[in-house]
């Protein structure tokens, strides 16, 4: 029997506001423990929350970017539970009137893991059930006999983005998360760094025999801190659950924890009692009427990856592949556009960025913002190639030097005395030398082996120390040999 999996993702995203959700404490990652706290985010009695306008608007912007309906009227609720990361014993969240509903994410090929891209045919649409806004909880560290708590994170504006159970493979989950992350970065609503906990993902997964209508037993996986970790955890879990079902075992509904080092999920000690949060409307906050600021937030809408890709292909005539690689990273796309602006050959700029620059950056573990080569340097390099001043072979060397030193191409060309020799007299001398030194190749060429010409051309390039213009050399050699 064949089995299929049904996956839904709940993604928590910290918003990149200056201050927290309900108090004016700084919203910043990595400060010393308990140094950005106040009575509100410590949950002290008698304090009152006041809503951060920017956080509400950023959530609405996220909803717009994900094609959601924005609720005209929304409110906050108290989610009651007891845990030391939330000492007021309730989290301010949204229950039945979230800010955004029914959106979607289209999974395009480039967002899948590299090794799975060739299996992707058509774009698949994953539904988004809802996006609500809440406050993040404090961070707890569990020691042998005690737990210790840092409240810096408590009260950080946190969006929860809930997908429909439309995802069927670990690769689709990967693509969903990387697309979502890309969109969040385009909208500048979050830095969405999973390793910093700015984007966190819980997976709901069940496995059922193909053709069965009812869902299988739903299990939740937590604690994945990279997008590829989510892929591995799901792959493991699907295999484990399928194995259990094949052996006729029953699965129990539980929460499992992914252990990256072990490459396994482990069942977590589950509470006796099912969660019963007794939600009720938060009396300390007034509802939100989104109509008032809809136009303002609409004006913030960025050009999204899919639209940018289309524009790169039509305006710059980039290949599908180049455009896809460039728009995957907003900074890279911007880098390209600055470099492409002055010249007539944007595709050449794209090739340098996509092939050479990305390779060198990744080898040096540098981000695009740290690139020693600036966009206009690439524009200049392309210009030198286009005008025939240097050969493409020389351009590769210049590029290596540019990356190493950060110098502009014209300085390197000057310093190294590089320039392509198109001067006929000099080229003829080298061609004569090559012909004289390689009678066998000459013979071969004359008897019809045209590939022998490449050998002779190679010799000329060698004699010229790579400076000869290969196209001109071709012409001269053919002329001399047919004489």
């Amino acid at each position, binding site marked *: 029997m064949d089995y299929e999996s049904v996956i839904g993702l709940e993604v928590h995203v910290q918003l990149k506001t200056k201050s927290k959700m309900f108090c004016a404490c700084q919203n910043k990652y990595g400060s010393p*423990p308990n140094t950005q706290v106040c009575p509100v985010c410590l949950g002290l009695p008698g304090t009152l929350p006041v*809503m951060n306008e920017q956080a509400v608007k950023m959530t609405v912007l996220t909803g717009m970017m994900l094609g959601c309906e924005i609720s005209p009227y929304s409110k906050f609720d108290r989610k009651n539970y007891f845990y030391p990361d939330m000492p007021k014993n309730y989290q301010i969240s949204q229950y039945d009137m979230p800010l955004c509903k029914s959106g979607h994410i289209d999974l395009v090929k480039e967002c899948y893991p590299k090794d799975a891209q060739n299996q992707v045919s058509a774009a698949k649409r994953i539904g988004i059930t809802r996006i609500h806004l809440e406050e993040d909880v404090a961070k707890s560290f569990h020691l042998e006999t005690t737990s210790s708590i840092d409240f810096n994170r408590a009260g950080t504006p946190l969006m929860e983005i809930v997908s429909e159970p439309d995802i069927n493979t670990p690769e689709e989950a990967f693509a969903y998360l990387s697309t979502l992350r890309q969109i969040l970065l385009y909208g500048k609503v979050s830095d969405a760094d999973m390793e910093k906990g700015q984007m966190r993902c819980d997976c709901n997964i069940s496995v059922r025999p193909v053709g069965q209508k009812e869902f299988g037993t739903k299990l939740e996986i937590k604690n994945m801190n990279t997008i590829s970790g989510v892929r591995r955890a799901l792959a493991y879990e699907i295999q484990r659950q399928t194995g259990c079902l094949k052996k006729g075992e029953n699965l129990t509904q539980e929460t499992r924890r992914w252990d990256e080092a072990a490459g396994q999920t482990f069942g977590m000690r589950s509470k006796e009692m099912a969660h019963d949060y007794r939600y009720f409307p938060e009396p300390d906050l007034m509802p939100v009427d989104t109509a008032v600021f809809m136009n303002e937030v609409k004006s913030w809408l960025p050009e999204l990856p899919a639209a940018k890709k289309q524009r790169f292909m039509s305006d710059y005539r980039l290949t599908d592949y180049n455009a896809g690689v460039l728009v995957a990273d907003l900074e890279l796309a911007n880098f390209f556009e600055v470099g492409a602006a002055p010249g007539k050959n944007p595709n050449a700029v794209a090739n340098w960025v996509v092939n050479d620059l990305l390779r060198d950056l990744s080898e040096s573990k540098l981000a695009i913002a740290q690139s020693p080569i600036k966009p206009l340097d690439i524009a200049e390099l392309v210009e030198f190639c286009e005008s025939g001043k240097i050969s493409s072979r020389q351009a590769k060397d210049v590029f290596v030097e540019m990356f190493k030193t950060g110098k502009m191409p014209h300085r390197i060309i000057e310093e190294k005395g590089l320039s392509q020799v198109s001067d006929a007299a000099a080229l003829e001398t080298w061609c004569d030398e090559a012909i004289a030194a390689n009678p066998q190749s000459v013979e071969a060429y004359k008897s019809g082996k045209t590939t022998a010409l490449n050998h002779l051309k190679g010799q000329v390039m060698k004699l010229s120390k790579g400076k000869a213009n290969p196209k001109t050399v071709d012409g001269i050699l053919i002329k001399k040999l047919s004489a």
Partner: protein
Amino acid sequence: MSTNNSGKKIDVAYVAQLARLELTGEERVRLAGQLDRILEYVDQLRQLNVDGIEPTAHAIPQVNVFRSDEARPGLPLKEALKNAPQRMNDLFVVPKVVED
């Protein structure tokens, strides 16, 4: 056990457990009676005709009470940790909680 007019039963022991309250049997009986009376009181609202009235989350017709997104310094560390039952490395220390 008490019942409101919608017929839903309120399990005092369960609610007490949710609220982390430890009740004696006698307290449970007494509170069940008191809860009954509270629910009866609130139930008077059912006598009102609310046809055509939009539900609201708040009694005051006011929306969008916002704070602009500006950060201010919070409490000094010493002040922040003042109520900690125990502290270590500038963290609040509490009895171990098992991750749920």
